């Protein structure tokens, strides 16, 4: 197999690994700051008399906020790359090593500003329910939120950089993705937030927020707002929650995004290989059509495998747990 093709597949695996890290940290960042859907319970807690020491950071839906950070980082990095790459001809990666972290730092600063204003604003609005703004909670969570956000945005920007230069990196510039770096950051920012919001939040919302309620049942409407406020030692803050979710919810969420990135890139690359498109790239011919057909067929096979896996899992878990036996 030609070295260009091997390098393409190697870069694809790097992208999938970065995606795993990115979405794990995205979920933990949303747990650390209580963003997204389970935050409705933190909002509700003070209103039903449950004064708490939770961080209350609902900037917006996770997809949009993450898209904002990733586009900010991507745009700064892209501008810096434009300026720095001509200075190191032949060794453009040196420009990326400097440009990407600087871009991501810019995005993290914006994240921390939004976290501060949204926590203070939302908690101040609960004054009538006697919910104080605990300054140690505010100060103690900003750095962990920023650190988690840095990891997410950094990995997504790296994915966008690799994808927009994947052809150049593997020796065939015609294979570079047609989208520019900031647009790829936008696409994966939306997707990473969408997945972090839909998958990982379940572990935080269903289990950790209501840990003193019976395990193994959906959380009833009467429980809503009555969140678990005490930790194994002392009063619970978000730092206890991120540590708990890092054991299951975070990695599961990371695996979701990692698998999606792996499958979408893998089907495309294997389709190109099976269709005879690599490494010569005879575009817009029957070979290109064949590559597309292989991509679609492989994608449908993955969908079928997932459907069968889901069917088996649902049947197994229903049999294992059985009908509801509580009151």
């Amino acid at each position: 197999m030609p070295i260009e093709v091997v390098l393409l597949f190697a870069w694809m695996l790097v992208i999938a690994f970065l995606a795993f890290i990115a979405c794990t940290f995205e979920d933990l960042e949303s747990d650390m700051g209580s963003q997204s859907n389970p935050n409705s319970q933190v909002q509700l807690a003070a209103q039903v008399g449950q004064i708490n020491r939770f961080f209350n950071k609902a900037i917006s839906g996770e997809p949009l906020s993450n898209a904002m950070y990733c586009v900010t980082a991507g745009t700064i990095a892209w501008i810096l790359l434009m300026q720095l790459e001509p200075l190191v001809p032949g060794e453009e990666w040196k420009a990326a090593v400097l440009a990407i972290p600087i871009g991501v730092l810019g995005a993290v600063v914006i994240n921390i500003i939004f976290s501060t204003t949204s926590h203070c604003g939302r908690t101040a609005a609960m004054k009538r329910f006697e919910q104080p703004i605990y300054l140690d909670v505010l100060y103690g969570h900003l750095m962990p939120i920023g650190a988690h956000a840095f990891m997410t945005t950094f990995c997504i920007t790296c994915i966008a950089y690799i994808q927009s230069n994947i052809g150049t990196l593997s020796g065939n510039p015609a294979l570079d993705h047609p989208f520019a770096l900031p647009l790829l950051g936008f696409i994966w920012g939306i997707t990473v937030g969408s997945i972090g919001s839909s998958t990982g939040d379940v572990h935080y919302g269903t289990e950790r927020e209501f840990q003193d309620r019976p395990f193994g049942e959906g959380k009833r409407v009467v429980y809503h707002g009555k969140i678990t406020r005490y930790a194994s030692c002392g009063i619970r803050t978000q730092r206890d929650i991120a540590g708990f979710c890092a054991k299951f919810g975070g990695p599961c969420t990371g695996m979701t995004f990692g698998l999606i990135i792996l499958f979408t890139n893998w089907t495309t690359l294997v389709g190109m290989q099976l269709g005879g498109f690599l490494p010569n790239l005879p575009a817009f011919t029957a070979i290109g059509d064949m590559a597309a057909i292989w991509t679609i067929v492989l994608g449908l096979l993955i969908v079928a495998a997932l459907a069968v896996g889901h069917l088996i899992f649902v049947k197994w878990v229903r049999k294992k747990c059985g009908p509801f036996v509580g009151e």
Partner: protein
Amino acid sequence: MEPVILLIVGYVVIGGLLACVAAHLLPVGGAPAAMGTATGIATGTVQIMLGAAMTGLFTAASVDTYTDSLLLVTLSGAVGATVMICVVMFMANIIYGFGAGVVPVSGRVDVDPITKEPQAPYKTPQCDGHGVPIVVFVSGSLGGFIGGFGGALMYYTLLNYAHFSAGTAAIGAISIFVANAILAAYNIRGTIEGFHDPKFKRLPYALVASFAVSLLCGIVVSLTAVLGGTL
């Protein structure tokens, strides 16, 4: 009027209508699903629809670099979005099952229309179902496929008929998609399980609104292409 303008408007309208139908098919659980109080994916309509469409768009854009067939590009977009939504539903169920000990169960029907398994005995009282049961998974997969198809169709139209650049075509397709998904979200009002949900019967109202919005978007796209000199 040039026939290609009719083609652009027609495809944008079809893409918009498909996006609207897809949003109704997706199992949207919203905030209650994050607490295991409602069936479906634990996020809003627009957010999950957008995530799926983005993945589809990425696949479609990759495939569009080596084939010029409309059908192949749109189908690859549809499959990309379906893969995304299937992985999300499967992994969400893994967390429901192993992380919270919750059994996937539909809250809107007593018997699963596909497997004929009973739902009511497994449901927690005072909950509107929880997890992603089989009928919901099937509906969600269909939604992902239709939504991805619609998104990729709009991308292909903007790229190859209106001759926008790849980035502009992507942003344009996403924008029209979001407008239609938001219309669907208004119609859904919170949560929906899929085609078996009684709320699905409201679809015609959303389609009328979606047709109007997509038609307007198609006209704007055509005007932009004509005035911008790409057509």
